[in-house]
């Protein structure tokens, strides 16, 4: 009986734990024209909140990033706003120079649905964390 439960349960568990993670190319720097800023929004894999894929908007571009995914937003240098939200919203605004920025998306506890948060990150920390993420296919 217990072996039958294990046989049936293993694929379910595998789906629940890994099935929602973004599948795609591992991190590679995006090509960006001059006078543009590249904002990498990445979401390290976490089982909690993995079914939520809130849309992130940076400038005029949007992307729904799943757990373990990242998306490079290439935007004109200048004032840029990135926002996301479910039942609660988060917003980041910065004067973007033509360089690379990193923003980490995470999901915190919500009432009905998790709250996405956009954390501006130091380059050093972000560069190691984003290596574990795959490019989000839109």
């Amino acid at each position, binding site marked *: 009986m217990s072996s039958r439960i294990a046989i049936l349960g293993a694929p379910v568990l595998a789906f629940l734990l890994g099935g929602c993670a973004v599948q795609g190319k591992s991190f590679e720097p995006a090509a960006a024209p001059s006078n543009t800023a590249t904002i990498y929004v990445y979401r390290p894999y*976490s089982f*909690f*909140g993995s079914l939520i894929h809130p849309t992130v908007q940076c400038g005029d571009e949007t992307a729904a990033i799943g757990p373990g995914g990242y998306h490079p937003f290439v935007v004109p240098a200048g004032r840029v*706003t990135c926002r996301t939200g479910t039942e*609660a*919203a*988060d*917003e*980041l*605004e910065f*004067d973007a120079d033509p360089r690379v920025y990193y923003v980490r998306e*995470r*999901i*915190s*506890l*919500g*009432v009905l649905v998790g*709250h996405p*948060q*956009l*954390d*501006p990150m130091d380059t050093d920390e972000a560069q190691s964390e984003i290596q574990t993420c795959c490019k989000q296919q839109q």
Partner: protein
Amino acid sequence: MPRKSSLRIPGFSSPAFLALALALVVLAPGCAEQQLHEPPPLVADTSSLRPLPFKGRLVSGNPNQLPPIVAMSLSDNSPITFSYREELTHEEHHTPMILSALENLAFLSNPTGEYVVTALASLSISNGGEPIGDYTAQTRIARPYGMYSQPTHKELDDAARAAVRQEIDRKLEAEMPKLAASTGDTE
């Protein structure tokens, strides 16, 4: 008339216990709500501010992102120059979600994490290349977030910027006579 039997726990029906339970229900979430909804510092009322006793040219910095006193004292052609720089650093403290989910107080609007923004500003004033004033200020804004309330990073950034500019303005106001003397101007 037969009485309905009920489970009675000694002490749990005493008036003191009921009063304590009621006080806890009212006070515990109330305090947390108050903490979460603490408003960011308001932007200073600029109507009471006076400009510097001289005009200056901005050589470094964003003209739309200046302390109000400096913004009031801008001129395109002045030998006096302003150089203003502002920098924000961010910190976050998060309670792991599994712990938040298991913590009953999180459902009573207890904070499950905190955002911290530190703003650092520096202003240099020079007259013909000679420095006549150098001011720095630092402010730290921290706001908790929870299940029912979450400040946005932008709100905190704006509050931190406003606070650090207010601090620079306060220093400029305190040194107004010295600055006037150093440029030979009088009010």
